[in-house]
């Protein structure tokens, strides 16, 4: 039976068909839907959200050492967080087949950088598979576990935004159960004390050599011979663009197993074609290897070194052809993403935007949008969990330099659990004095509402203990009087907490606790936040002086024209921040 599936749905299906029994991940676009699609296989595959990618990887490694087929999944930057365990797990090899799904984001649709993790597979020495569509995502994932066991190597399953989020038809298969052996300690294999690790480093080369021999004659790598004037070497989604560009006017070496690289197969293919083109996104990973084999080829000298490819770009690069299009002189206006109407972060960022002489460090989440006009209230975003540690460093450095700039660090609940908690430990341990603001919107918001250790539920829908954030901060060493929890929709509460905490010369924590407006509310949310979605705001046009103060909250429910401002009834969620900033009391709260 064929069904339409996104690459992520297909990868999840492939894991189930391949006999996986354990899965762990931290959400991150474009990888999130892989684990979101696992609970449907709940009887067969236990799956969970971990607090971060390193923890997810270590949990899956533990399952593999225990003899169970397991996988973890993450976006490309999550690979950096998980690098520590995976670089050493490459040495030990696996017991149960192990797959690390890494989703790169060429073109930075939803990411702070564009890194090509094919380099990581080479650097860590992991078997690497690269599917080019949904069918291959399912098929390759299914086979990845046995492949991992056969060569005693972890697999890096390399996907990209377009393979993850495109849908295509998939022929489904059956699940293959893998027997779980009785546990036996393998100390020389898994305890990487130097004496053992040195031996493992040497045997890893033998395992790579065996995999290399396999790569030259395996189902993942195939030559498609048509016209031989041009030979295209490609992998992943780039194959689709190349195939559409050259059609049957070229031959293709379509690579699906790209570490280790199939040297003999490449040499053989290149000897049969007149000239060699390399079509790949981001770094010249294949190209550099082909050149190292002494084969002349054309690649990154004509196609871009960054951003996504597509058929138009490949056609223009190699054939010099551009499509005929309609043109216009009329200009469009950009639509930058904005905090939603009723977003609980708006009140906090509005209050921060009014404070002078502060530095605001941030990191990754919906709250990164606090940077945008008209709020402009977030000054840095480098990586997940960085906000408190950066704020700590900045506050110490500024004070030492004799500056009186106060530092505020904003971080989401999920991001605090991810790696921010270590940063707070640093700030407290080292007598820091930045104000850490934990934006607890009761869910992991940006990636589309995943449960986390603070929400009370697991990925599989079970009730779970909740992290008590104030108690955790206190246990780390923040003084009780320096921890305040507020409703961020109430500007007076936020301002009075800021007035109290900002002047202090010691670590302080402000927690803003209100659910994301797009969240599916739990019974606990409804009990704790009884006014949620119960009211809306309307502007009394008789009282309104059209001063536009409300517009400066940046709320998208406020529709501003020259003549007047109106509140869109279908968008307003009743946070009342606009009502509170109106100097003429022209905004009323009404029952919805």
């Amino acid at each position, binding site marked *: 039976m064929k069904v339409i599936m996104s690459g992520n749905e297909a990868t999840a299906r492939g894991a189930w068909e391949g006999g996986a029994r354990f899965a762990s991940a931290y959400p991150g676009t474009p990888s999130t839907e892989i684990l979101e699609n696992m609970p449907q296989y709940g009887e067969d595959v236990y799956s969970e959200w971990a607090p971060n990618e390193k923890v997810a990887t270590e949990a899956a490694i533990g399952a593999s050492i225990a003899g169970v087929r397991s996988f973890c999944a993450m976006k490309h930057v999550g690979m950096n967080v998980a690098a520590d365990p995976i670089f050493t797990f490459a040495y030990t090899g696996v017991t149960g087949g192990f797959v690390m799904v890494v989703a790169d984001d060429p073109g930075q649709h939803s990411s702070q950088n564009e890194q090509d993790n094919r380099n990581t597979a080479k650097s860590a020495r992991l078997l690497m598979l690269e599917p080019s569509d949904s069918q291959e995502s399912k098929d390759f994932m299914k086979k990845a576990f046995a492949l991992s066991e056969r060569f005693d190597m972890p697999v890096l399953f390399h996907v990209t935004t377009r393979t993850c989020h495109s849908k295509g038809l998939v022929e489904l298969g059956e699940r293959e159960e893998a027997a779980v052996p009785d546990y036996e300690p393998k100390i020389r294999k898994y305890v990487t004390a130097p004496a053992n690790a040195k031996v493992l480093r040497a045997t890893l080369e033998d395992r790579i050599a065996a995999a290399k021999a396999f790569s030259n004659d395996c189902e993942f790598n195939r030559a498609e011979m048509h016209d031989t004037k041009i030979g295209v070497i490609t992998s992943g989604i780039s194959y689709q663009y190349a195939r559409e560009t050259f059609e049957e006017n070229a031959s293709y070496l379509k690579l699906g197993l790209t570490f280790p690289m199939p040297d003999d197969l490449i040499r053989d293919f290149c000897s049969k074609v007149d000239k060699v083109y390399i079509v790949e996104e981001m770094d010249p990973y294949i190209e550099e290897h082909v050149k190292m084999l002494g084969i002349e080829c054309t690649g990154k000298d004509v196609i871009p070194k960054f951003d996504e490819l597509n058929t138009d770009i490949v056609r223009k690069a190699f054939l010099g052809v551009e499509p005929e*299009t*309609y043109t216009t002189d*009329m200009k469009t206006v950009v639509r930058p993403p904005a905090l939603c109407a009723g977003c609980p972060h708006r009140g906090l960022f509005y209050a921060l935007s009014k404070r002078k002489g502060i530095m605001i460090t941030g990191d990754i989440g919906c709250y990164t949008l606090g940077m945008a006009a008209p709020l402009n209230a977030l000054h840095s975003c480098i990586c997940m969990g960085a906000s408190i540690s950066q704020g700590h460093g900045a506050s110490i450095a500024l004070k030492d330099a004799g500056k009186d700039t106060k530092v505020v660090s904003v971080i989401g609940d999920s991001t605090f659990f991810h790696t921010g908690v270590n940063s707070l430990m640093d700030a407290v341990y080292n007598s820091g004095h930045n104000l850490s603001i934990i934006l607890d919107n009761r869910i992991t918001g940006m990636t589309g509402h995943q449960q986390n250790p603070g929400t009370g539920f697991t990925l599989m829908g079970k009730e779970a203990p909740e992290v008590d954030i104030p108690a955790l901060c206190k246990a780390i060493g923040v003084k009780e009087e320096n921890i305040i929890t507020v409703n961020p929709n109430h500007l007076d509460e936020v301002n009075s907490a800021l007035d109290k905490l900002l002047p202090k010369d010691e670590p302080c924590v402000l927690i803003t606790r209100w659910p994301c407006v797009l969240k599916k509310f739990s019974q606990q949310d409804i009990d704790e936040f009884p006014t949620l979605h119960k009211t809306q705001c309307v502007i009394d046009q008789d009282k309104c002086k059209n001063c536009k103060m409300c517009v400066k909250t940046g709320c998208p429910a406020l529709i501003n024209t020259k003549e007047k401002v109106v509140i869109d009834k279908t968008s307003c969620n009743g946070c009342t921040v606009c009502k509170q900033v109106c100097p003429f009391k022209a905004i009323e709260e009404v029952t919805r």
Partner: protein
Amino acid sequence: MSEVKNILLVGVGGQGTILASKILTSGLIKAGYDVKMSEIHGMSQRGGSVSTQVRYGDKVYSPIVGKGSADVIVAFEEMEALRWLDHLKIGGKMVINDYRIQPVPVNLGAAEYPEGIIDHLKEKCEVLSFKAAEVATELGNPKAMNIVLLGALVKAMGLDEIDWDAEIEANVKARFIDLNKKAFHAGYSL
């Protein structure tokens, strides 16, 4: 081998392009086509521009609709039609919802929403424009505007051999089936 057909559904996050494209692809698959569909999630959901790209034929490789190649562009919002004009095939058709969503820079007074977009586009290419929200409101729920637009798209692509009522029944919640069938046929007969 038959030519690959390309459809673009463009709009603003939250306008219901996803359900419309789900019904569309489901129908195309039943008709025996190879289908690929691409959409970008993430930051774009927070009020940004969104696009769903649908390609079908005997065999489809790339999931992306290139410039100058869309047979039909369905714009759920006026300015999004203008934004994607360069993706329309010469001789292709635009179905435009006569509906505006003001972007943040316009709201803040930093930019002006371009006036006269639909008339401007009519000078360049074949355009069918109508107020889909009003059509849907008359049928009982403005949210069904996405299915009104789907009806107009199906007509524009000549996809008459597919049982669209059955696809709506299979993809829509029971209590919305009648509304959406009516919306589809209203859009189809525009």
